[in-house]
């Protein structure tokens, strides 16, 4: 029994959330639906940890769905890169679910909660499948499962702010265009290689020799993923989607959604097209790196001029995604492992920040902007302190996880001796302190408005919020596990093979 579970872990990781979704949608009790979701998210986390312990020494699990041999059947591949991404996604997904109960009950009708958690499970299951699948077309299906469910979750913010509907619609349309671009690309590559299995594609692409068609196919696939990962200039859906979605959804999406797309982008470039450096390397150095730097600056500058707190950090997410993409774009083992470190750390940082903002919003009963959170440091000290820790980590202060990310990214850039990129990264880091300072100053140094009502702290989110805050400090002091896992992930990705 136990052995059967372990051999089928990759499939279970997708099947369990997808099965819980319809069950959730039938439930009328919000607490029951939340309990089921928590069990689903918790078991996914345990499954991901088990996969990680199996694969950390370079073991590569190839799971054949329905026992159909690849390349005919659909294959799930879990190597150390996949399992690290999965651990980050499932872990933060679990913590976001812990916080969801209180955040959701303040923003969503109880009778809609079952359906809300159903969509929540669909997003999770879809994204886990997206990361594991080694079948290029199956990837599109998982992409759409998670995108449709995310659009529903974003639209559910309409209970408090009707603009959520428009944000959800735009996410749906832009996401569908991106996914269709990806499918066009897969069509071209399929026409050249006659296979949909990524490993098989990688083996056949160098000998296919169809110059222009390969370029076009690659271009479409990458363009599609750039949209999904919200890399500048196709990031426009992200700020609205994150800021109008219910707080719990912002936490979940910021922590896991774009991370999955970034990982898939890495797999397309390094795994599928790793054998044809004349395509992959040019795309990385001439397209991904400039776009990443553009995103870093646009995101940071937009965040500086934003007064709405949630939107400010949504813009900052665009910048942070830029740092991750920049690491991938360097295409060196150091750069890619810096990316993986930042994928994990950024999930911790943004997960915590959006959770804390959710706490503020629930207590204020209104959107959090620079006016309404004046002096909130003294009015809600426990939530605000966790927010402060995550904010410092975002700025990259030593002894926080964000510092480790920046350190490894800077080291990786130094290794490639591209001093222009280094200067730009350092300038943008300094700029990010501007908006963080602005918000911290308002929160901690200004007195609360006179006669303001007492704000109730929200003990239900203490546990998940402080787990994340401690995570930010823990990985800032002892990052050895994360760094080792990221190194092994980079080796698995760059070492060729699916």
């Amino acid at each position, binding site marked *: 029994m136990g052995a059967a579970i372990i051999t089928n872990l990759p499939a279970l990781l997708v099947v369990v959330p997808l099965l819980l979704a319809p069950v959730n949608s039938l439930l009328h009790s919000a607490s029951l639906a939340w309990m089921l979701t928590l069990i689903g998210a918790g078991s996914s986390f345990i499954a991901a940890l088990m996969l990680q312990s199996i694969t950390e020494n370079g073991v590569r699990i190839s799971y054949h769905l329905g026992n159909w041999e690849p390349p005919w059947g659909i294959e799930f591949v879990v190597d150390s890169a996949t399992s690290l991404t999965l651990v980050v996604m499932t872990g933060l997904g679990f913590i976001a679910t812990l916080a969801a109960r209180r955040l959701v009950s303040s923003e969503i009708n109880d009778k809609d909660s079952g359906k809300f958690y159903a969509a929540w499970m669909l997003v999770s299951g879809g994204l886990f499948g997206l990361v594991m699948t080694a079948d290029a077309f199956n990837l599109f*299906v998982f992409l759409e499962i998670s995108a449709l469910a995310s659009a529903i979750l974003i*639209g559910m913010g309409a209970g408090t702010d009707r603009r959520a509907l428009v944000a959800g619609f735009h996410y749906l*349309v832009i996401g569908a265009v991106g996914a269709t671009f990806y499918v066009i690309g897969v*069509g071209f590559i399929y026409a050249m290689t006659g296979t949909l299995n990524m490993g098989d594609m990688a083996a056949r692409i160098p000998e296919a020799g169809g110059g222009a068609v390969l370029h076009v196919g690659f271009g479409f696939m990458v363009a599609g993923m750039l949209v999904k990962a919200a890399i500048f200039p196709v990031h426009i859906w992200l700020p609205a989607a994150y800021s109008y979605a219910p707080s719990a959804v912002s936490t979940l999406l910021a922590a896991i959604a774009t991370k999955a797309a970034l990982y898939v982008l890495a797999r397309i470039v390094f795994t599928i097209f790793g054998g044809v450096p004349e395509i992959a390397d040019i795309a990385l150095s001439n397209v991904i790196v400039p776009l990443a730097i553009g995103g870093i600056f646009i995101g940071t500058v937009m965040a500086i001029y934003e007064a709405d707190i949630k939107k400010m950090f949504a813009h900052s997410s665009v910048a942070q995604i830029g740092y991750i993409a920049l690491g991938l774009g360097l295409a060196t083992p150091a750069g890619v492992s810096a990316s993986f470190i930042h994928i994990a750390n950024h999930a911790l940082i943004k997960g915590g920040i959006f959770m804390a903002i959710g706490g503020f919003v629930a207590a204020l009963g209104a959107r959090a902007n620079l006016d309404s959170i004046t002096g909130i440091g003294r009015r809600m000290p426990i939530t605000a302190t966790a927010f402060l820790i995550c904010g410092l980590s975002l700025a990259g202060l030593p002894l926080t996880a964000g510092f480790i990310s920046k350190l490894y990214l800077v080291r990786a850039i130094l290794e490639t001796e591209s001093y222009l990129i280094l200067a730009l990264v350092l300038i943008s880091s300094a700029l990010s302190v501007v908006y963080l300072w602005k918000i911290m100053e308002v929160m901690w140094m200004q007195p609360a408005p006179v006669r303001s009502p007492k704000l109730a702290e929200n003990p239900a989110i203490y546990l998940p919020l402080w787990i994340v805050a401690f995570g930010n400090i823990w990985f800032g002091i002892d990052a050895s596990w994360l760094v080792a896992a990221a190194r092994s992930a980079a080796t698995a990705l760059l070492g060729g093979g699916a």
Partner: protein
Amino acid sequence: MIEQLAGSWNHIIVVILMMIGLFLVIARTNLIKKLVGLSIFQTSVFIFYISLGKIAGGTAPILDGNPDTLYSNPLPHVLILTAIVVGVATTALGLALILRINEAFGSIEEDEIIEAKARESLPRPKRPTVEAAE
């Protein structure tokens, strides 16, 4: 040149449909028209895949025991069956969202919605806010 174009007329149609669809998605302010554009865009990709699987002189891929029979490739068709389902789901969800947008904003024209959003200095709060209590 003409023969070349005639030989790949399926691709030309795909490209024309694709451009019509993308143009509608980008340029139209009416949300329903945007969704129509998205559907046309997706359909063009379906046609691309289906014409990919056709082999000149090939027949339906049902084994008839004759090793010389030329079969068309059924796989792209199967893939598109899945993609059509995804497309239907996308359209359905999009229409549902448009209905809700119409209820909330009283319009499905993007520029009018943007105006309405701009007029909305602060969203409607559920509970009394700090300002209201003062």
